């Protein structure tokens, strides 16, 4: 007999507990990135020369990655829709596609960093590059974390179990996506 | 009243302003504090449990009671306003306003010593006759000084308690402030920002003299005057002192 705490079955606020939790996680994450990007923007405004450094970033690659992430988010939405209809295997497949999107994103990122580092633009070059690698790096670690969870969720969803998790991981993935939408103009476009 | 009874001297033009502000705040927060405490203790004694005397049922929405609590906002806000106005006024005088200077000194902090650059007899800083000293600042009474504060390594804080003056030194920046000594004497300069193991070992002295004495001191110790003077023991001594200071300064 598996007795889960009755506490977990209640919903006094009218919002499912898991969704509530993921919103709280997202809001604390927003503050983390807010602090980082706020610091970056203050520096950027104070140092005109950063525009020259930023000129070395590859806007094409950044734009491609934006596209990749947005597409993967679309798959996350489709997965949610499938889960709503109770179609676990289909949802799982969409989640795999989302994960694939994350993987492509990371590969492009790896290529990009590799190029930049081999051309002497490393995390210690100057504060612009420090911010560049730190911000993108923290974001990438969120992508990786999201992918891992997604694989777990997909595995259970495939058996038509715990389908409500699909929505939760989707929410998180959208958040990771939105962070990138902020990073992209700040690091790549503003020159 | 309170601060100057605890400190050895009130030695700058604005020191007494801070002392006054401190006293005013003491009174303004003291009044509500004393009232709150007397109510607090009287309630504890008055409403000790007695047989047959049940507690009142008060929800905290009855106007007859809430008016006391909410009414208290008015004086507190008022007191806040008074404190803010006075504090900002003092702050403006000391930190925002920069009156015309009679003289300028450079204060350089490093782990764990102070270097002071005095303008020398010509009263212009960054000239050949500047006098550099370590852990000893010489200033003249009734002269308005600007100080240019720098740090060579970590944060330090240039604190002169008798002036009631404090300012962080930040590596990579030169921060300008001012003071005007009003009484002569010799007092502490302290480092008031943790700066590593030797933070407790960063004392310096400020020597406030009359303008005449100070000028004489400057005349005597100016490197030009020393070089011009004929050879003597004291000269070679102060020279080697000077050299070691420069070495330190170059570190």
């Amino acid at each position, binding site marked *: 007999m598996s007795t*889960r*705490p009755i506490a*977990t079955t*209640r*919903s006094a*606020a009218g919002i499912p*507990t*898991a969704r*509530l*939790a993921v919103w*709280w996680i997202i809001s*604390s*994450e927003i*503050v983390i990135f*807010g*602090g980082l990007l706020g*610091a970056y923007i*203050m520096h950027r405004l104070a140092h005109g020369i950063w525009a020259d450094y930023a000129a070395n970033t590859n806007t094409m690659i950044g734009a491609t990655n934006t596209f990749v992430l947005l597409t993967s988010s679309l798959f996350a939405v489709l997965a949610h829709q499938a889960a709503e209809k109770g179609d676990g295997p289909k949802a799982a497949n969409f989640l795999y596609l989302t994960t694939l999107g994350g993987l492509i994103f990371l590969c492009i990122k790896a290529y990009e960093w590799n190029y930049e580092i081999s051309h002497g633009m490393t995390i*210690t070059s*100057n*504060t612009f590059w*420090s911010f560049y690698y*730190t911000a993108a790096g*923290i974001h990438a670690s969120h992508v990786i974390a999201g992918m*891992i*969870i997604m694989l777990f969720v997909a595995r259970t969803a495939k058996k038509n179990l715990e389908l*409500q998790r699909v929505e*939760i991981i989707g929410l998180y993935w959208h958040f990771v996506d939105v962070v990138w939408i902020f990073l992209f103009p700040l690091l790549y476009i503003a020159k | 009243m309170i601060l100057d009874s605890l*400190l050895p001297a009130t030695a700058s033009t604005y020191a007494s*302003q*801070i002392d006054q502000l401190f006293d005013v*705040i003491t009174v303004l927060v003291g009044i509500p*504090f004393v009232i*709150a405490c007397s109510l*607090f203790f009287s309630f504890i004694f008055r*409403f000790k449990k007695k047989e047959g005397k*049940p507690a*009142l*049922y008060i929800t905290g*929405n009855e106007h007859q009671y809430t008016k006391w*609590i909410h009414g208290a*906002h008015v004086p*507190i806000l008022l007191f806040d306003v008074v404190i*803010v106005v006075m504090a*900002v006024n*003092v702050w403006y005088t*000391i930190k*925002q306003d920069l009156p015309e200077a009679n003289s300028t000194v450079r204060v350089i902090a490093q782990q764990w010593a102070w270097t002071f650059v005095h303008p020398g007899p010509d009263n212009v800083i960054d000239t050949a006759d500047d006098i550099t000293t370590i852990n000893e600042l010489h200033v003249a009474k009734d002269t308005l000084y600007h100080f240019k504060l720098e740090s060579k390594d*970590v*944060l330090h*804080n240039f604190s002169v308690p008798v002036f009631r003056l404090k300012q962080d030194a930040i*590596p990579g*920046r030169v921060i300008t402030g001012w003071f005007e000594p009003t009484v002569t004497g010799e007092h502490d300069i*302290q480092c008031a*920002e943790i700066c*590593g*193991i030797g*933070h*407790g*070992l960063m004392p310096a002295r400020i020597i406030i003299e009359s303008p005449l004495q100070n000028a004489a001191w400057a005349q005597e110790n100016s490197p030009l005057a020393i070089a011009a003077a004929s050879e003597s023991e004291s000269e070679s001594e102060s020279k080697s002192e000077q050299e070691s200071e420069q070495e330190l300064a170059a570190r």
Partner: protein
Amino acid sequence: MAELIPVEHADGHEGHAEHHEMSFTAKYIFPLDHKMIGMQYMFTGMFMAVIGGFFAYAFRMQLAFPGMSVPGWGEVTPAAYNSLVTNHGTIMIFWVAMPVLIAAFGNYLIPLMIGADDMVFPKINRLSYQIFLLSSFVILSAFFVEGGAFGGAWTAYPPLSTKAEYNLTGLGSTIWITAVFLEFVAFLLGGINFITTAMNSRAPGMKMWDVPMIVWMIVIASILFMLSVGPLLAGGIMMIFDQNLGTAFFDPDRGGDPILWQHLFWFFGHPEVYVVLLPAVGIVAEVITTFSRKKLFGYRTVLYTAIGTGVLSFTVWAHHQFIAGIDPRMANVFTVTTLLISVPIAEMMFVYIATLYGGSITLTTPMLWALSFIFEFLIGGITGIFLGASGNDIYMHDTYFVLAHFHYTFYPIAIIGTYAGFTYWFPKMFGRMMDDRLGKLHFWLTIIPFNLIFLPLFVLGAAGQHRRIYNFENYPELSLPWMQDLRQIATISLCVMLGAQLIFFYNVIKSWTSGPIAPKNPWQANTLEWTAASPPPHGNWPEGLPTVYRGPYEYSHPDRKGSDFWPQDEPA
């Protein structure tokens, strides 16, 4: 990864499979039960408090008797002094106040007080404690590595903290920031639990305004924490990179800015003081209502002042940096916001005092603690006003006046508030009554020395004594005989106080093993935890979870004949 878990265990699927005959490890080492996790936090926090108190003893002995070989520590060198102070501050705030007030009481009380059988994410809860425990080992490990523990103050201002050639502690500074980082992650995880549990798992019938104040306060504190800690987490990563990868975020020589860290730190640091304040005032609300048999005067007022304080707390951080080289015009803004905070907090304190009015007060041990909290905190609060006044802070900054100010706030919160809560809920937690006479003895022998420690420090601070200086003999104006006398009074009082804690520990052990068996509701209080057995079994109410019919503070209600309390779960 922090984000993983909620999703993974979102529905606590395997939740309480181990219902029967739990093994020793399952019950005590890796528990899922919220009460056991709360206890783990409590005792870890208590252990850390002893360490933090011992550090205070070691460096205070050095201040009173410079150069002496301190019994139990040895000679306090300048380097040792700095790391003792730094780790005393860090441990007391992050490893005592936070875990005990938020995590221990939060975990123990929230499900019991809202009538649930557990937290909504038991496994995150356990993970949170494990990360916290790990972080405790990490912070203490610094004392055993080459170069010793970090000594750059609990504020860790760069460049001192980022460059080993400046702080001379090698690994120490990285260990420090890593430990703090881990601790924050643990509390983010814990916070999710507190917030979601309190929002979603309330007993049937328990409306927003029926939630006991302590639960509200822990929830608000967790929200404050979550919304303020982010920038510091980012800053922590930047600091670790500066230390170990050679970046220059905070290095002015290479385009960085040391002040940036100060903003990131205090943007968190100031809300943090209210993060620990709120749970303590929550405890006080429970205790004073129970022992004065009074309804809390203006339940919603307290709540609104707490929320108001929380919101304002995000706008005042630079009052720690008045003279740190920020734009001097900014100081004016921060003076205004800082002084404004006095309004909601004054209101909150007045409400508590008003609650006593017309009461029927019994001075039990928990009540004494709670009352002394109000009094001592008022002193801490009003001295904050001296510092918030920018002009005055030019002189006061980093003196012992600041130090005494925040010990008069932190001590009531972390020690007095904790003792109030601990003695109040002791019968519930351990099923035995505490010895009241020993409790009172402990109270007086703690509270009198406490004032004798820190009142002299106010005077010394006003006389210009600076913080973090290991020996005042180097400063002629700070080594006057009367000053040294005050230092010795403070230190001797500290020794008395530390000795008095032995009474507490004796009392705990004695009462735990042989105290009178506690009834379900020894204080005749209203809130739900008192309707469970003492101590509550796994699942809290095996006979069925309670339903709520009224608010938590209906004492001496005129409609209720024959008794002066009215439990929340009693049908009308």
